[in-house]
C-alpha cells in the first residue's frame, strides 16, 4: 500500500476497529496489509512489538495460504491458537481492493465464538468501505520499508492505546 493512500485508509479503519475491540473484548488487535504494513492497532504501546507481531502474522498468513493450496483446502477463514491464559486469532479480511490481516489476542474475558462473531461483522464493514472498493496499489520493494515505517508511526501516534 502506498504512503499516499495510508492516511485515508488508516482513518477509515479507526472506527470499525474500535467497535470490534469494544464488542469482542479482545485485549490486543492489529490490522495489517498482506505485506505486513500496519494500518490499525489497539493495545500495543511499543512500536517494536507491533513490528514483530505484524511481520510474524504476515508470514504465518502466507504460510497458511500456501498450505491451504497444497492441501486443496482453498481459502482459509481463520487461524486460532489457544494458550493457557491467552488465545491468538489471525484471520484474513477480504475486500474488493486488497486483502488485510487481523491479529487479535484475547483472554477469558471473551471467547473464540464471540471473537469470530464480531470479526465477521468487522469484515463485512471493512469490505463495504469506499476506501477498499478499488484495487489499491501495492508498495514497491524500494518504497516498502519507508511505507511500513510511515504506517507504523501513524497508527501509534493517532491511536492512543486504551484498555478495553
Amino acid at each position: 500500500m502506498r504512503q499516499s493512500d495510508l492516511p485515508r485508509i488508516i482513518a477509515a479503519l479507526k472506527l470499525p476497529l474500535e467497535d470490534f475491540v469494544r464488542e469482542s473484548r479482545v485485549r490486543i488487535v492489529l490490522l495489517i496489509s498482506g505485506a505486513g504494513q500496519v494500518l490499525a492497532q489497539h493495545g500495543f504501546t511499543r512500536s517494536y512489538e507491533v513490528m514483530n507481531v505484524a511481520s510474524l502474522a504476515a508470514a504465518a498468513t502466507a504460510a497458511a495460504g500456501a498450505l491451504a493450496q497444497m492441501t486443496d483446502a482453498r481459502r482459509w477463514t481463520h487461524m486460532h491458537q489457544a494458550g493457557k491464559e491467552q488465545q491468538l486469532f489471525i484471520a484474513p479480511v477480504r475486500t474488493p481492493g486488497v486483502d488485510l490481516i487481523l491479529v487479535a489476542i484475547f483472554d477469558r474475558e471473551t471467547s473464540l465464538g464471540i471473537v469470530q462473531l464480531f470479526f465477521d461483522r468487522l469484515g463485512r464493514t471493512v469490505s463495504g468501505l469506499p476506501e477498499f472498493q478499488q484495487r489499491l496499489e501495492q508498495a514497491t520493494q524500494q518504497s516498502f520499508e519507508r511505507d511500513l515505517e510511515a504506517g507504523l508511526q501513524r497508527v501509534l501516534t493517532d491511536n492512543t492505546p486504551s484498555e478495553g
Partner: protein
Amino acid sequence: MSDLISEAVNRLSRVHGVRGAMIVETEAGLPILAELTEGIDGSAVAALASSLFRRTDQAAINAEFGAVSIMQLEADGGHVIVSNAGDVLVVVIAEKIAQLGLVRLEAHRAAEALR
C-alpha cells in the same frame, strides 16, 4: 458421547414450541451440535448465550450463590434457556407459546445426561 448429545438435542427439538436446540462448548462459545429452524444464526446465538451465561455464572459465584444451573431469558417473541452441563451448555430457543416448564425440564435432563 456423540449419541448422547444427538439424543439430547433430538428430544429437546421435538418439544412443542421449540425452534432450536444446541449443545455449545462453554469456554469457546462454539456449537457442537445444533438442530435449528431456518433463519436462526446458530453460531451467533451460541457465542452470545455462552458469553452471557459465563458472566451470569461468575456473578452468582461472586455473590456466593454458587454456580448457575439454568439461565432463562425472556423477550417479546420468545425465550432462550441455557442449562449448565459443565464443559458444555444446553441452549434452547423457544417460542412464546412453548410450554416453558417442559422445555426447562428437558433442558435440565439433557444437561444432567451430558455431565
